[in-house]
């Protein structure tokens, strides 16, 4: 059996490891598109603040990790999948045959058609190559403009502040992290950042980029211009699936998969950020693009690549955790609530603490938190186990902080 896994991020690597656990003799080929060993994009911010070196971003630390498991690692992007011939073609011209194929190619930052977006000094923060450029340009005191204040951008924000640059953030929406937090939490986060000396401009887009003496001039919608040594754009991502055009694989925002993480073409699977798989909360196929989901996808897809339809995906819970200059926020599931649902809220503005639980009848279906670091994972447990809360519903409505007790009482039945 020849397995080919395209994409060397967490999904691709985890899938190869799972394939090897389940099939000791099959041939496993992992194909990446970048020169480095498989690494974690999530670790790049920690590289930027020099907490770790490049090796610290590698998904697996042992040099022999792949060879020990007889996983062949090739670094040459795939340009075409030929389902009829059961083969793939690489940029270098090589053609490889597969019996089972996994596509885990992730995503790429969007490049909106803004005039000047290609000039030197305007960069993404996505790859190790990008990180090297940012380290070079973002010296202490350098004016830097970060365009976008979503989830990934807030992590980059933290790293830039760690590099002591003079930072301005420009966000099109009315608040920070609009897809992860409500206006109360987003507003608190903005105040928190402003109190730390960061200039945050919301409700504002970028009209154009121009070269100037400092490097780049960021010309805003509101007529203002910001002169900077570096502009970092983070305006959303798109799935890496152009190479699948004409392959016959069903595509939407991502690659559509069934509960076995298999595409409409038998023997071809998808996992991770590129896969539009089942969302636990809604039951429909949605993009999530988070680490835990990637790994879940990978384990399930690999299992079904070895044993046909062995393991079904019940849906992954969307969730995120974010540290913005020391203020930690998290969101789980339907954090924005459901129609006809109820919520309980605890807000302490002075201490930047916020907790909001969303209920649908007797079930917890979503939550968001700000300033809480203890036991937050139990929110996943409470939502994911989908047990009726019974007496704990009223108790949580009165005091949302009693999450652990509610979990132990309702899910584990210890009281």
């Amino acid at each position, binding site marked *: 059996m020849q397995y080919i896994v395209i994409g060397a991020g967490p999904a691709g690597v985890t899938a190869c490891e799972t394939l090897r656990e389940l099939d000791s003799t099959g041939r496993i080929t992992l194909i990446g598109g970048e020169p480095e060993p498989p690494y974690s994009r999530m670790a790049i911010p920690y590289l930027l603040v020099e*907490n770790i070196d490049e090796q610290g971003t590698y998904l697996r630390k042992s040099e022999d990790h792949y060879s020990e498991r007889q996983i062949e690692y090739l670094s040459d992007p795939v340009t075409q999948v030929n389902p009829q011939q059961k083969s793939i073609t690489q940029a270098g011209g090589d053609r490889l045959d597969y019996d089972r194929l996994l596509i885990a190619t992730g995503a790429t930052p969007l490049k909106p058609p803004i005039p000047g977006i290609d000039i030197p000094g305007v960069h993404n923060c996505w790859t190790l190559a990008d990180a090297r450029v940012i380290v070079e340009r973002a010296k202490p005191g350098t004016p830097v403009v970060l365009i976008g204040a979503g989830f990934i951008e807030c992590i980059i924000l933290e790293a830039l502040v760690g590099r002591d640059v003079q930072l301005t953030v420009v966000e099109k929406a009315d608040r920070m992290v609009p897809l992860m937090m409500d206006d109360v939490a987003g507003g608190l986060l903005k105040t928190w950042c402003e109190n730390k000396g960061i200039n945050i401009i919301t409700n504002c887009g970028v009209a154009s980029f121009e070269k100037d003496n400092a490097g780049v001039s960021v010309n805003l919608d509101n007529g203002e211009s910001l002169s900077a040594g570096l502009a970092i754009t983070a305006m959303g991502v798109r799935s890496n699936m152009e190479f699948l055009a004409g392959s016959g694989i069903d595509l939407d925002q991502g690659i559509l998969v069934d509960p*076995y993480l298999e595409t409409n073409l038998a023997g071809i699977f998808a996992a991770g950020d590129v896969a539009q798989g089942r969302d636990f909360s809604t039951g429909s196929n949605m993009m999530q693009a988070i680490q835990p989901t990637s790994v879940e996808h990978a384990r399930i897809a690999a299992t079904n690549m070895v044993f046909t339809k*062995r393991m079904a995906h019940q849906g992954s819970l969307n969730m995120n955790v974010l540290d913005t200059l020391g203020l930690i926020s998290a969101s789980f599931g339907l954090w924005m609530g459901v129609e006809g649902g109820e919520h309980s809220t605890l807000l302490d503005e002075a201490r930047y603490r916020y907790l909001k639980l969303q209920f649908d009848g007797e079930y917890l279906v979503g939550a968001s938190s700000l300033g809480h670091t*203890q*036991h937050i994972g139990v929110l996943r447990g409470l939502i*994911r186990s989908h047990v009726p809360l019974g007496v704990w519903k009223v108790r949580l409505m009165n005091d949302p902080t009693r999450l*652990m007790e509610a979990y132990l009482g309702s899910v584990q039945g210890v*009281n």
Partner: protein
Amino acid sequence: MLRSLLIDADKCTGCVQCELACSFENEGVFNPSKSRIRVFTFHHEGRFVPYTCTQCAEAWCMQACPVDAIALDVNTGAKVVHDSVCVGCKVCTIACPFGTVNYSSVSGKVIKCDLCGGDPACAKACPTAAITYVDADQTGFEKMRAWAGKTDASSAASV
């Protein structure tokens, strides 16, 4: 033979000796808020329930770590955070459905129970044997696995 923590909440008096012992053993201070085992109070029922990581087989934290900072200690079965590798991204703190991996803003790393390398301070400190360290077979390991299973994102297909 693998051993694990057996918690018998019926015997717990809520004295929090376990929390003090854990925080002193691991953080060098007597501060329950830094303990990896916590005693939860059920006011309505008048009960105390000590709870910490069960070193579950699913190892959600270990699976979710993007930099391979959590590893299995084969001698104890514990999933152990390696501080030199942990970047402090906190993904494990939301991935663990038991809420037993926590972030420490002091160290910038996550902390979780590591069974004190095979000699857990909480069990030694417990005056009522509510927490004991015994052969894994006796701890209702299967029960714990069942709890873990309830939060699994996948399931064996019925076919």
